[in-house]
């Protein structure tokens, strides 16, 4: 009995092997993709430009010479001053510290170079007319805040910062420290709707404070920051799915007016 | 040669018949074994429900296996007779049957071991239960004290509901019967806290002191020292209170009670 089974088994294995060989082989047709053609096009190099100022610090009323040198450029534009040759110089007399921008245009594109001329003001020469309009300054801060300060997001029922939030906050701190050092901010803590509203009030508060503590550790003055928890009361996305919830678990930055 | 062929011719039908018979026997045996397995599975389910049934079933199983063994022996002796004819096929089959019967024997052995293990487990469980302090009957034989968890829950429920006379008595009863259990320190603490909540501060201090002296490493020790401090505070004995608050901070610096003690010291204007 066993032998018969054994024979039958051997036979079956052979048959299967033959069948597999027949069909299996068909699939193994080599279809390697052809090697990519060698790149032949040569790219037009982008222009380069280097703008310098001499001296970089002047007293009020004194002049400074801006000079530049460029490669692969057909034309150089000094922003707010005019068009120039690819290499050259011009004299400026700024009434206040100014950042000059030179743009080199060429067949390969355009490139910028900046230099700042700092004007040392004499106290007696300051007149109200030289102070820029307050509105414009505030608008600019607001613009920077609106476009560059990013919100951070949290995991479910968590108030510790994720690696992404960590990165975002380092960038935010840098901007708050260097670009808009005068603005005061409100950090709002928000939660998704899945927890209970009471607990979420505390959780949102904890989130806002995690963000605040991080910024303070990054050198932002605590006096510039106020926190507030909205719990689950002010969702950004009213939906009831993970996509909406993920958006609603956030530390939201608001500019304090 | 012809004789041999003739003999073969005569014996073949018999051997085929035998072979057929043995096959049937084997299938039956196999199904018996499957049945045995199923029964063991059933056993597994019901074993914890009823030890007595388990035992009977196990005995029945063993009987069944013994019967199988006996049948195998019978077949074996029958085949031995047939084997005299020297049929190879039969020898093969016999070998297989031997292996099978050996396996069945093994199964029987394992089952006996299983039965013993179950018996042992039951015994050790009974032992464990008997080791739990079973309170003795009252002299009149009518009152059985409650088991520790129930007695504790009852006393704790009275404590939570504010029936402090009852909770004190309940925890005292608990300690009288189950002094060495895990919750003995809690019981002692709640006696103190029941006094505390009633405003019986000297009694509270005394009861809390027992927590630290009897169960210095219990989890209620920091709370007991803190609460005796608070009891002294309520008795306007600020010096003793301050000393006890400091003791909490010193002895149990990592406990939540240490923070409460610090806060109390701040409120009292000492640090």
């Amino acid at each position, binding site marked *: 009995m066993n032998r018969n089974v054994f024979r039958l088994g051997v036979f079956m294995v052979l048959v299967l092997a033959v069948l597999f060989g027949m069909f299996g082989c068909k699939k193994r047709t080599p279809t390697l993709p052809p090697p990519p053609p060698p790149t032949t096009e040569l790219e037009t190099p982008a222009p380069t430009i280097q703008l310098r100022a001499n001296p970089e610090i002047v007293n009020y009323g004194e002049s400074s010479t801006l000079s530049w040198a460029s490669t692969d450029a057909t034309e150089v534009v000094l922003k707010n001053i005019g068009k120039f040759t690819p290499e050259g110089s011009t004299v400026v007399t700024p009434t206040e510290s100014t950042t000059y921008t030179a743009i080199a245009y060429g067949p390969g594109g355009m490139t910028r170079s900046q230099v700042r001329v700092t004007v040392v003001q004499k106290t007696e020469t300051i007149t109200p007319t030289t102070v820029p309009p307050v509105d414009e300054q505030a608008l600019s801060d607001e613009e920077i805040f609106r476009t560059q300060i990013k919100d951070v997001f949290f995991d*479910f029922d968590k108030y510790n910062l994720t690696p992404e939030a960590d990165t975002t906050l380092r960038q935010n701190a840098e901007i708050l420290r260097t670009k808009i050092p005068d603005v005061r901010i409100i950090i709002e803590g928000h939660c998704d709707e899945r927890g209970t509203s*009471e607990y979420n*009030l505390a959780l949102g508060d904890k989130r806002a404070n995690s963000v605040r503590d991080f910024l303070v550790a990054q050198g932002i003055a605590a006096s510039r920051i106020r926190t507030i928890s909205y719990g689950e*009361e002010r969702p950004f996305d009213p939906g009831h799915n993970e996509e909406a919830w993920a958006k609603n678990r956030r530390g939201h930055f608001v500019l304090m007016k | 040669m012809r004789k041999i062929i003739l003999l073969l011719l005569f014996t073949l039908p018999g051997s085929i018949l035998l072979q057929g018979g043995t096959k049937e026997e084997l299938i039956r045996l196999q199904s018996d074994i499957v049945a045995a397995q199923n029964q063991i599975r059933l056993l597994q389910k019901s074993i914890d429900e009823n030890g007595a049934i388990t035992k009977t079933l196990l005995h029945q199983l063993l009987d069944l296996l013994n019967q199988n063994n006996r049948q195998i022996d019978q077949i074996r002796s029958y085949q031995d007779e047939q084997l005299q004819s020297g049929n190879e096929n039969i020898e093969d089959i016999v070998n297989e049957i031997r292996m099978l019967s050996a396996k069945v024997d093994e199964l029987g052995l394992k089952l006996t071991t*299983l039965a013993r293990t*179950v018996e042992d487990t039951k015994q050790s469980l009974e032992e464990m239960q008997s080791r739990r302090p079973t309170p003795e009957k009252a002299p009149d034989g009518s009152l059985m004290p409650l088991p520790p968890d129930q007695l504790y829950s009852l006393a704790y429920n009275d404590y939570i509901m*504010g029936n402090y006379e009852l909770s004190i008595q309940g925890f005292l009863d608990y300690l009288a019967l189950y002094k060495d259990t895990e919750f003995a320190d809690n019981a002692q603490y709640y006696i103190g806290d029941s006094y505390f909540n009633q405003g019986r501060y000297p009694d509270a201090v005394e009861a809390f002191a027992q927590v630290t002296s009897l169960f210095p490493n219990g989890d209620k020790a920091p709370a007991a020292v*803190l609460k005796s401090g608070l009891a002294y505070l309520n008795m306007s004995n600020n010096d003793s209170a301050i000393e006890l608050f400091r003791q909490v901070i010193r002895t149990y610096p990592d406990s939540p009670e240490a923070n409460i003690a610090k806060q109390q010291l701040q409120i009292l204007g000492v640090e």
Partner: protein
Amino acid sequence: MKLPIILWITLIILGLAVNGQDQESSIVIWPKPTEETALALSDFQPKSGNIDPSVNEYLQTINEILWEDLEYSTFFKMVSKSFYPANRITEPTDVVFPEWQQTDLRIDYLVIGNARLENNYLVVQCRVFDLKTKEQILGKQFRTIPRYARAIAHRISDKIVSLLSANASQGIASTQIVFEKKTKTGKEIHLMDYDGGNLQQLTSNGTINLTPVWLRDNARICFTSYQNQSPLLYYLTLETAEMQSFPIRGGLLTTPSVSPDGAELAFAARLSDSSDTDIYISTLDGRNLRNITQHPGIDVSPCWSPTGHQLCFVSDRGGTPQIYISDSFGAGLVRITLERGYASSPDWSPDGRYIVFSWRPSRMATFDLYLVEVATKELRQLTQSAGNNENPSWSPDGRHLVFQSDRTGTTEIFTIFADGSNVRQLTRLDGCSNPGWSNYGTAE
């Protein structure tokens, strides 16, 4: 062959061990309302001599509301009116006792009454008879402006409940419920009767107003409001709608709970010198402030035990939000929920034995109401398969709970018996949450 047998042995041993545990935690005790007393309520009739037919309108209200109140009180089996003797009962003399005493009716007590309009006042008389002794055991007269017909019915119900329950309950029909209601600008605090009637808006500051609770005298409520930007605590006097700010301020103050003696307030707060939310206790006017949860992490939603010696609250100190209890100093901390899922918004039962809370066993599940017996930690599930059920609050007699649920698609307020039966929807307003049940109405 070998392996399976060893496996079986292991399984059997495991089976023994596991089963032993199961048997120990199978006993569950919980407050079951009784329905032993059979009550008949004969419709109140216009009193003879009444000349203003509009009394019938008020009588209809009273008869309906009183029936509902008595039925929902959990104390009575209301005997259907179709079994009553036919004649109308206005005065005690109209009661034909042999008819009411028929044994197949099995009525224990009979309530009768009448009403009349008199100089623009509604005067209602009510009597209760013990049918065994034919004795009148209650006789009351109420006089008010007709608009308060509902209130009269509630008062009558409370009188009857208080009398026939041997004061186990003073009756909850006159109690009220405060809650948050979503508006275009945030949430405003609203008020309604315990049965959903008589809805009133209490705040209208156009910001977010949250977590309202009653002070013990029922005259004021306390809640969190963003009306001065930060979420801080305020009192509101119901009579005058006057707001008064709680003197302690900080980054966040919320979830107030008034102590049983009415003198202290427990609340969750992040004060300016702290970076996390803790439970604090102070007097109602902010004196004697102390922190009872000096622990990093979130502590929120405190609730006093009826003795005033313990509090329960939510803490994430174990990793997930769970319910803990400690004494009112913060000592003797004990976790009373399983270290699993998400447990929140606890409320301690008026008898002290239970804590009701909202629990989601796993992230995929919904929130349901659970009762835990404090002494044994035994759990009982009160709601199931009906959306999220959150923020429970006990009725003062401990026989009912009010909570929010999104079972109908919008978040609404519901009440339920403490055994999980008799769910009743109180609002259909879209966006009602965090109800707080008042204390017993003040005695007349």
